[in-house]
Structure formats: structure tokens, C-alpha cells
């Protein structure tokens, strides 16, 4: 059962009815936990052992860390002013080391499972290649089916552990509540990455039925299905046609294909987000947003603040900051100050951290070299633009370009869109070699051809209409949302207008949506 299926909608409807029954009130979270595990099993994955291990390890780790924090607090309180500062500092260091041990152990198990399952074959294959053995990636115990959502729930759990270690939140004393946080079904397939501090008060309190939540949630679900079924699924055959035959296509077609894929992926992923956020809203639990109109970004760095926001903020808070203030970074920073101009030298710790981040983010997506290149591509462009910023500002001043100039902003957005589209070469090709060949073709075998077959292969009149209208609606909504949330403007319309909009969208889904599940399958980001 995937999120974009009738089975899920029926499952969710039943859950909602049970959820708001009067006698369930205090136990809504228990119902959610049961529902999450049922969903996990129904989604095809019967191997609950991994998520259970992660839950238990996280639960125990958090309690231990919390205990250390409490012990430290009490000690400091009891001995402040009595013992010399140095002794207190040493004591704190000792506790810190113990906390690090606990954290390391938990992270090792959780991340270890993730790495072995997801990256086992990749690593063994490469190790084998170094030692001349070609088939190490085929070892059977490494062929474990990847459990649903492992990339997502592992990172969420690690985030929770680190937050407890930091003292940002208290550990959850109830194992089952921890289990709910880890396995909460709207976010398990493709995120968003949530934080315990935000989710705990929402997940564990009881929620009263609110008609506004139901209405807003349904709006979002409808909109999500529209994006997924009318836009994303309609574009998929065309994108697949281009990239399955990439050897025969010109660089021009391939570039177009990348751009289409950017749009398709956005419609797909943001559609999913709308559906799960809408569902969660109906239950009274708000989820974090993952997208903020990313194609309005004027730079790659801005794009990563608007695309898959929760992934980036997770990496920023739990990897980037610790890395950039680590001893290694400080060392590099000092070296940098000696050999580089000051404007760049101050960026060295960030650059050091960024390189690791982009490598990790790349590998988080998939275990293959093309994602390493993807990470490098992102890292290089962002680091380069950071370093070259002072020069860009000088050039803009010389050419008398103002940042507020709409034309210039438009240019920046188009440029960013092209950069992002080129980035898509790596996910869309099935192999590293493929992605490099495609890049080569785009730059050196461009061959622009303005025929329908070259620009829109396999697209029929119907597809033009659906995707065209769908995109126009999508773009219009995006523009409006840059200024104010869409659902507020809709709610101000009279009943007839509002319902005309909903019904038109629903009928468009029935008419133009792709229902042939052989063609569509589930969501793109569920594979990560």
C-alpha cells in the first residue's frame, strides 16, 4: 500500500473515525502507534525487526543520556561555589565523554544497520574491485530488502538522541511513545524529518475534532493527489522514454529531459508531502514543511533552503554545526588564515564541514558513485559561489545591476533552474557511467532540434493539455503562496466557488489522472 492509493485513503478514513471516537480520547497516541505498525506491515514490509531494534536502542540511549544530564546538573548545583571551577569543569568533561560513549554506541548500531543494509553491496563491491574480486557485491546476506523508511527513521532517532544529549529535551520515559515517534506513519515513507521537541507535544496529547483541520487537511490531500496523478505521473513516461534511450538522444533532448524530471520530481515529492501533511493535519498533528517554492530560488544555496528543507536542516543541525566547530575544522581554519585572503579564510571551517555534508547527503540518497559526484557537484558550486561572492558583488556594482531588479532576479532563477536540472542527471541515470555520458552529451553533443518528437517524446495531445493546465495551476498557486498561504484565500471564497474549485480538481484527477498503476508505482523518494 503506497500513500497514493485508494487502500491508504480507506485505511486513513477508518483510522480518523476511530481516532475521534469519544472513548479513545486519551489513547489516541496508542491508536496511532497501532496504525503506524499496521501501515508498516501493509506497505509491504514484514520485517519489523529493524525498526524495533532502532526504537529500543534509541529509547534506552535517551534515558541514559538524560540520566547523565540530571546527574551533572545536580552535581554542579550541589558543588557550585564549594569546589574550584577547574574541578567542576573536569567533572563536566568526564560526563561529556561518557555521554559521547553512549551516543556513539547507539548511533553505531542504528547507523550501522542502515549502512550495512543500504550500502553493504556498494561497499563490498568497491572493496572487491580494489582487490580484484568482481562479485563481492553479490554476497547473499547483503541482499536484504531495504526496510521501509530506514533512511528516514534512523536519522530522526539519531536527531532525538543528540537533542537529549544536548539537554534540549527530556527523554521519553515511555517506550511505546518513543516507538510512535520513530514509526509515525505519515512521515515514515519519505519524511519529513521531524524533531522530537516539536513532535512530542503534538503526538502525545489528545486532540479534539476540528472541522477546520478536516477541511484544510482534505484540501491538501486533494491538491497532493492532483500534483502526483495529473502532473508527475503524466510526465513520467516521457522522462523515462528520454533516459532509457539516452544513447540515441541528443544533448538538447537530454537537457530538456533533465528539466522535465526536475518538474516531475517536484510535483511527485511535494504531492506526497501535501497528502501526508494533510492527513496528519486531520489528526491534529502538524508536520514540518519540506518545500517552499524551490524554483523561485536565485542560487543553489537558496534552493537547498527551499527544497527538502527538513533533510537539509537535519544535516545542518546534526552534522554541519558539530563538524564546523570541531577541532579539525578549527585547525583548518587556522591554516586557512595563514594562506588565504581573509574573506575566504573565515569560510574554511564551513567549507570543510560542507564537503563532508555534501558527500553524506549524496550517499544518503543512494549507494553509488553517481551520488558521490552529485554531492561533489553541489558542494563545489555552493562553495565556489560562497568564495566568489565578493567578486560577484563587485561585478554587479560595475554593471549597475540592482538586486531588486525583476529582470535580474528572473535571470538568477532561470540560471538556478538550469543548474538544478543538470543536477538531476545523477538520480535519473541508472548508473554512474550513464550519468557521465549524459553530461558529456549535454555539453558536447547538443544538437538542438525543435521538433515535437525531440522536445516532447511520447507526449500525446492529452498529455500536453493535462500537464500544461496542471502546471499553470501549480505555478499560479506557487506565485500566490509566495505572498500568503493559499488555503486562506480559498477559505475566504463563498461556498459555491470553493466547492467548484474542489470538484473541478477532483474531476480533473478522475479524468486526467493516471490510474494505470503499472505505469506509476509509488513515490520517487521512497526508494531512498
Amino acid at each position, binding site marked *: 500500500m503506497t500513500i497514493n492509493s485508494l487502500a491508504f485513503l480507506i485505511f486513513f478514513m477508518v483510522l480518523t473515525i476511530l481516532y475521534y471516537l469519544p472513548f479513545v480520547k486519551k489513547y489516541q497516541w496508542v491508536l496511532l502507534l497501532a496504525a503506524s505498525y499496521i501501515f508498516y506491515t501493509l506497505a509491504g514490509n514484514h520485517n519489523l525487526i529493524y525498526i524495533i531494534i532502532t526504537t529500543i536502542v534509541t529509547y534506552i540511549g535517551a534515558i541514559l543520556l538524560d540520566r547523565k544530564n540530571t546527574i551533572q546538573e545536580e552535581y554542579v548545583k550541589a558543588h557550585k561555589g564549594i569546589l574550584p571551577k577547574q574541578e567542576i569543569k573536569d567533572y563536566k568533561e568526564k560526563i561529556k565523554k561518557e555521554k559521547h560513549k553512549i551516543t556513539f554506541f547507539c548511533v553505531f548500531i542504528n547507523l550501522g544497520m542502515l549502512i550495512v543494509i543500504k550500502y553493504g553491496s556498494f561497499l563490498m563491491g568497491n572493496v572487491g574491485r580494489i582487490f580484484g574480486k568482481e562479485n563481492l557485491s553479490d554476497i547473499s546476506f547483503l541482499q536484504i530488502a531495504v526496510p521501509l523508511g530506514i533512511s528516514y527513521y534512523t536519522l530522526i532517532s539519531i536527531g532525538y538522541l543528540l537533542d537529549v544529549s544536548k539537554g534540549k529535551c527530556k527523554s521519553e520515559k515511555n517506550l511505546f511513545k518513543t516507538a510512535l515517534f520513530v514509526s509515525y506513519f505519515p512521515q515514515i515513507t519519505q519524511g519529513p524529518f521531524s524533531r522530537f521537541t516539536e513532535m512530542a507535544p503534538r503526538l502525545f496529547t489528545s486532540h479534539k475534532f476540528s472541522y477546520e483541520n478536516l477541511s484544510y487537511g482534505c484540501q491538501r490531500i486533494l491538491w497532493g493527489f492532483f500534483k502526483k496523478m495529473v502532473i508527475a505521473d503524466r510526465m513520467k513516461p516521457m522522462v523515462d522514454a528520454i533516459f532509457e534511450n539516452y544513447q540515441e538522444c541528443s544533448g538538447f533532448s537530454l537537457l530538456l529531459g533533465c528539466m522535465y524530471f526536475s518538474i516531475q520530481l517536484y510535483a511527485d515529492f511535494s504531492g506526497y508531502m501535501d497528502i501526508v501533511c494533510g492527513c496528519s493535519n486531520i489528526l491534529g498533528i502538524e508536520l514540518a514543511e519540506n518545500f517552499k517554492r524551490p524554483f523561485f530560488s536565485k542560487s543553489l544555496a537558496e534552493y537547498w533552503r527551499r527544497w527538502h528543507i527538513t533533510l537539509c536542516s537535519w544535516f545542518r543541525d546534526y552534522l554541519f554545526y558539530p563538524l564546523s*566547530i570541531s577541532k579539525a575544522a578549527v585547525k583548518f581554519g587556522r591554516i586557512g588564515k595563514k594562506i588565504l585572503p581573509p574573506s575566504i579564510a573565515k569560510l574554511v571551517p564551513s567549507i570543510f564541514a560542507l564537503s563532508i555534508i555534501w558527500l553524506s547527503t549524496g550517499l544518503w540518497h543512494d549507494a553509488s558513485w553517481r551520488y558521490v559526484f552529485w554531492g561533489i557537484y553541489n558542494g563545489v558550486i555552493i562553495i565556489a559561489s560562497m568564495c566568489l561572492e565578493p567578486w560577484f558583488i563587485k561585478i554587479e556594482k560595475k554593471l549597475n545591476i540592482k538586486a531588486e531588479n525583476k529582470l535580474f532576479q528572473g535571470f538568477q532563477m532561470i540560471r538556478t533552474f538550469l543548474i538544478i536540472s543538470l543536477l538531476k542527471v545523477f538520480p535519473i541515470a541508472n548508473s554512474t557511467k550513464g550519468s557521465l555520458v549524459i553530461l558529456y552529451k549535454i555539453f558536447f553533443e547538443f544538437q538542438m532540434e525543435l521538433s515535437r518528437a525531440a522536445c516532447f517524446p511520447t507526449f500525446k495531445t492529452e498529455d500536453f493539455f493535462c500537464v500544461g493546465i496542471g502546471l499553470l495551476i501549480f505555478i499560479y498557486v506557487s506565485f500566490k503562496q509566495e505572498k500568503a498561504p493559499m488555503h486562506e484565500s480559498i477559505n475566504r471564497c463563498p461556498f459555491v466557488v470553493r466547492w467548484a474549485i474542489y470538484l473541478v480538481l477532483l474531476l480533473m484527477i478522475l479524468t486526467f489522472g493516471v490510474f494505470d498503476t503499472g505505469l506509476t508505482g509509488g513515490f520517487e523518494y521512497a526508494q531512498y
Partner: protein
Amino acid sequence: MEKLLEILKGLKPEVEFEKEQKLIDDGILDSFDLVALVGEINEAFDVEVEFEDMEPENFNSVEKMYEMIERLQNEV
């Protein structure tokens, strides 16, 4: 306080730090600015800002930053 303001102005001269109360929440200082800032604070005030301290609450305003610096200095 002045030292801190000097550092901040050196980083981002166009921002009016005295007035702002949501430097992180509103995105006025991004993650790279924050890292560079931490480096400068560590050097200037001889403290060690740790991972535990990297929270928006500690950096949203000049006052909050100064509070954090003072706390860290007291612990040494």
C-alpha cells in the same frame, strides 16, 4: 558588548544588530555566518562554544549572544 558588536558589524555591515531579536529565526544570519561568528567569538573572548550551545535561542539577538559568552566565561 562593543567587541561583540564590532565582530558582528564586520561580518554583516548592513544589519542593525542592536534592533534585531530574531537573527536566526528570520534567517538574517545563515548557517555559514553562524559558523564564522562562532570562530570569531571563540578567539576574541577566549571561550569554546560547543555543539550544545549552537541553538537559535543563544544567537537570536546581541543580548542573548552576550549572555552565552558570559556564561561560558564563568565556567572556565
